[in-house]
């Protein structure tokens, strides 16, 4: 039996706490961007996901994702109900911390991923349908993809593609589902008028700050030990976020004549997304480059939705899709074994094969997630119906779905 290292375990447990805080952070980030009449409904989606997906994960999701491999595609039911997941380490995943620590750290990733998707269908989805979709998605999309990429025996992992903290599993995966949702749900009424302006941008900035804070747990915690690699992942996470904040703001400044606060917050998140897959494999200066690219690319991707005509309300696709892909591919370019000997070199260090593997991982995740999400959404639409009635949409999620008002000032 491996021994628990108190330093590593302290680090991983507290990282899990930080990652947990990200989902409420996301709730505020999104909540500030919707209209006042939808803020509770928006927050509720993320908050309730924390509860529901955590339960699902303990009962069955974890074993599907990380249990003994079946054909590279899915985990077995050995750890159903956390049976056998105890206070001793499971060396296959993390030799110096309790298996429970690894499981709960991963739980937080399983939680935030479907929460990201809610940005795409903000302000117009029935709560019951949202719930059904989320449960189905978590089991049918999240767990399998997590298994492919991170599970022992998963086919993407076996292929050699790298995803340190969830560029494919979390961000691209969520973004593909978000795109499906935006397409299926249709556009909000009044889209394109100032009537749909964010109702509370300080709330959004607070959310972004909590995300940034929690992301240190997300990326550095993914080292699973509190050594040099964790320090390195922490540093590149911070620098990429900083760089993307600057690049988004500068691009917006040039394009629209003003540097915006929402741009800064969005840029920060874009940088955090992009560095996620690369965070355990690249050094500080590549991280800055990845951040600079991500800020500019995501800015452009967000504008694209106006051309393409779908209403990805809070830009889950533009930020997490574009950012995740940027990061996953850049990992294929900038990864270096000098940073992480357990990783691989990327194209810029003489190994173009890694870039190909990354590309395969991206395309596979995008395709699988989009298709399955689309099918789930259509099925829910055919049964419960996805969308609010027009007068419910007019009175807002808060009153129509929850019989609550956010503010009485």
């Amino acid at each position, binding site marked *: 039996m491996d021994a628990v290292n108190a330093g590593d375990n302290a680090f991983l447990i507290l990282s899990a706490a930080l990652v947990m805080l990200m989902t409420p952070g996301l709730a505020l980030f999104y909540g500030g961007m919707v209209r006042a009449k939808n803020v509770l409904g928006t927050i509720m989606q993320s908050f309730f996901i924390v509860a529901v997906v955590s339960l699902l994960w303990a009962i069955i999701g974890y074993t599907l994702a990380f249990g003994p491999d079946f054909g590279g595609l899915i985990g077995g039911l050995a750890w159903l109900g956390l049976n056998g997941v105890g206070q001793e380490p499971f060396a296959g995943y993390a030799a110096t911390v309790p298996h429970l620590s690894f499981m709960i750290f991963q739980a937080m990733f399983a939680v935030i991923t479907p929460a990201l998707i809610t940005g795409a269908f903000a302000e117009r989805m029935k709560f019951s349908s949202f719930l059904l979709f989320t449960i189905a998605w978590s089991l049918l999309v999240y767990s399998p993809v997590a298994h492919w990429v991170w599970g022992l025996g998963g086919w993407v992992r076996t292929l050699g593609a790298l995803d340190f903290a969830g560029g494919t599993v979390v961000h691209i995966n969520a973004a593909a589902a978000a795109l499906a949702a935006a397409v299926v749900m249709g556009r909000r009424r009044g889209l394109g*008028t*100032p009537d749909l*302006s*964010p109702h509370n941008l300080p709330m959004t900035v607070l959310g972004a700050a909590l995300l940034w804070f929690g992301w240190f747990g997300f990326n550095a915690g993914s080292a699973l030990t509190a050594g040099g690699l964790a320090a390195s992942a922490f540093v590149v996470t911070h620098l990429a976020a900083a760089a993307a904040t600057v690049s988004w703001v500068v691009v*917006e400044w040039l*394009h*629209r004549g*003003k540097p*915006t606060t*929402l*741009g800064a917050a*969005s840029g920060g998140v874009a940088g955090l997304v992009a560095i996620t897959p690369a965070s355990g494999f690249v050094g500080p200066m590549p991280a800055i480059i990845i951040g600079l690219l991500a800020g500019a690319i995501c*800015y452009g991707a*967000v*504008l694209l939705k*106006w051309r393409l005509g779908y209403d990805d309300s809070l*830009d889950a696709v*533009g930020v997490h899709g574009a950012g995740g892909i940027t990061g996953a591919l850049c990992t294929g370019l900038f990864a270096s074994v000098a940073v992480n000997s357990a990783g691989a070199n990327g194209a810029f260090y003489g190994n173009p094969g890694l870039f190909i593997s990354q590309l395969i991982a991206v395309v596979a995740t995008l395709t699988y997630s989009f298709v399955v999400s689309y099918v789930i959404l259509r099925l829910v639409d055919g049964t419960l119906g996805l969308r609010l009635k027009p007068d419910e949409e007019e009175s807002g999620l808060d009153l129509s779905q929850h019989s609550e008002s956010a503010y009485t000032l």
Partner: protein
Amino acid sequence: MKKIEAIIKPFKLEEVKDALTKVGVHGMTVSEVKGFGRQRGHKEIYRGAEYQVDFVPKVKVEVVAEEDLAGRIVEVILTTAHTGKFGDGKIFVYPIEEVIRIRTGERGPDAL
């Protein structure tokens, strides 16, 4: 009696209030409104999308006063709320039929 209603720029409120009390106004009611007029609104930017917002924040001041004071009130507002730029606002004068003070039940000028 008359009701004088003035739509003014928010930062002029304190000045207008002080000037009105000086000419003998003992009460007024103020509310926040949004104005549309010659003063252009402004653009706002959200994630690279630009929106034109036409409404400008204004303050509405309502004063009920006796006929003979009404003219003086209009004067005072004209002077103190004036900046000479678009959007300085308007003064509207309305007829009013009755005024009652809830505390005492007094009616008419005594109620002011």
